[in-house]
């Protein structure tokens, strides 16, 4: 009896369930919070545009000036060298740490321990003063005679010292990232490769590293972006990278805020480019990980537009049918 009264309204309303209209829940608090946040953002944007402190005309004058563009180029070079060399050395260190040889593993562990312990800026100043530590660098028998040597300042130079400093620092972190990636690869993969008799180096290059990349890339992306911004500390070595040049210019003309904005804008643009690159590299290494790979943002936009168009044409056709139905058979 009671169950009948509960179910009857629904059954009475519509025999065909497809005719029941779904009303989405309304989230008033969420809407209010959204409005509040939009107001705050608008206020901030308004301030950015109207507050004279930002001196957008000065920003415009400098952002593409030759000095700044060249400084950006130096920043990019430092980042590229330190990334490539740092990850190469880091990969070697990672495999040393994973090695069964206690000597190799201890040396790698010690390296990582030391270079993670020294602040990058301290280490850079050390390298800057390399010639005080080692006046000459040479090739010869260890602890024996030296065949060839060169003044350390001529060989390395300031940029070289900066690259070495950044690389050694980066390698310590890269080693741990790569090691983490290698450990994430299922042990069965190595067993299968070994059972198939695939040569050892090939096992690493072809089987282990490509799979480790899935775990390495997100953290490595973080590291490279950190490094790009971290190159700004080499200003202590008076190298003409972005932050150093910006400081030189505002030291001369006193326009501190707009010039800091110039540096900010460039760092944001470069970081965004790196993030986009990271997305596509990660996608590449995800091959085989999903049954169907998710679409890229561009594919997503295209599909959305295509779906909208299809819906629009369908709606149009439906409207026409309705109109046609409403005008009863006048012609006939």
């Amino acid at each position, binding site marked *: 009896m009671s169950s009948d009264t509960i179910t009857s309204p629904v059954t009475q309303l519509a025999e065909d369930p497809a005719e029941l209209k779904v009303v989405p829940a309304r989230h008033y608090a969420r809407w209010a919070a959204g409005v509040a946040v939009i107001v705050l953002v608008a206020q901030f944007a308004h301030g950015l545009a109207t507050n004279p402190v930002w001196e957008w005309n000065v920003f415009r004058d400098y952002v593409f000036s030759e000095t700044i563009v060249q400084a950006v180029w130096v920043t990019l070079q430092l980042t590229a060298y330190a990334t490539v060399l740092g990850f190469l050395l880091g990969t070697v260190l990672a495999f040393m740490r994973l090695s069964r040889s206690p000597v190799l593993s201890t040396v790698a562990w010690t390296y990582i321990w030391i270079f993670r312990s020294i602040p990058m800026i301290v280490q850079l100043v050390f390298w800057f003063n390399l010639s005080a530590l080692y006046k000459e660098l040479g090739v010869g028998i260890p602890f024996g005679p030296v065949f060839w040597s060169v003044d350390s300042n001529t060989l390395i130079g300031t940029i070289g010292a900066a690259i070495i400093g950044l690389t050694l620092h980066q390698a310590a972190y890269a080693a741990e990232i790569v090691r983490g990636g290698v450990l994430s690869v*299922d042990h*069965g*993969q190595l*067993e*299968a*490769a*070994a*059972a*198939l*008799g*695939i*040569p*050892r180096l*090939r096992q690493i290059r*072809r*089987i282990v590293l*490509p*799979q480790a990349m899935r775990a390495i890339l997100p953290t490595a992306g973080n590291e490279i972006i950190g490094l790009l911004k971290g190159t700004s500390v080499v200003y202590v070595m008076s190298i003409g990278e972005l932050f150093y040049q910006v400081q030189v210019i505002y030291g001369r003309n006193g326009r501190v805020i707009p010039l800091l904005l110039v540096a900010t804008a460039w760092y944001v643009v470069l970081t965004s480019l790196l993030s986009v690159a990271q997305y596509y590299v990660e996608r590449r*290494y995800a*091959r*085989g*990980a*999903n*049954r169907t790979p998710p679409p890229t943002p561009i594919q997503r936009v295209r599909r959305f537009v295509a779906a909208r168009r299809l819906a629009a044409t369908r709606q149009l056709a439906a409207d026409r049918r309705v109109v046609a139905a409403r005008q009863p058979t006048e012609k006939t």
Partner: protein
Amino acid sequence: MSDVMVDVHGVHKSFGLLEVLRGVDLKVRAGGVTVILGPSGSGKSTLLRTINHLEKVNRGWISIDGELIGYRRSGNKLHELKEKDVLKQRTGIGFVFQNFNLFPHLTVLENLIEAPVSALRRPRKAAEEAARRLLDRVGLADKADAYPRQLSGGQQQRVAIARALALEPKVLLFDEPTSALDPELVGEVLDVIKDLASTGTTMIVVTHEIGFAREVADTVVFMDGGVVVEQGPPAAVLDNPRHERTRAFLSKVL
């Protein structure tokens, strides 16, 4: 047994204090199919893994086609081989894992040609042709460009078998090849193995499929507690076991 393909001689293996193999002797005839049965923990998988030197033995030796595995003998001493030489020996021993262990980032075809190209230095083209023939043989000719995760478990194991065959091994070792499969997929994998048995490939199969053992094996080996308890033709071991432990095991699984 004149033409012995696999000869396991007095093999002992311990993991720390746990002695898993306690003196195993086993001879497998060329072209024969040997099925190893036994309760879990009896050491049958470990034995299989010592045959291709995935596990080193503590005592005893193993030879395949007259060649010592993992060691070189000079006088009374066994010298451990370098990894490079062990890898070379393994190309003559196919191994099929319980969990397939296909390389997920490579397509099915790439999985098959990886070892022939890198370990045996086969030309890529020839390796691909051979791989496609093998895929056809396991009934997966249309899956050459799929990635392993796009396949069912049974299909993955058939690919794994084809991958092992791509090296044209002298011996094929199967480590519980159907244990990770849904029941309805077991048949397709066993059919492939049966088909191989009829072509005269030497095989050692660790399995729990008693029916398969009865139908395909020419020798059934029953292991328990790290030793071979008894072995013989399936009719003898499965239907007329001489040992109490064999009888107890069979009464549980049959």
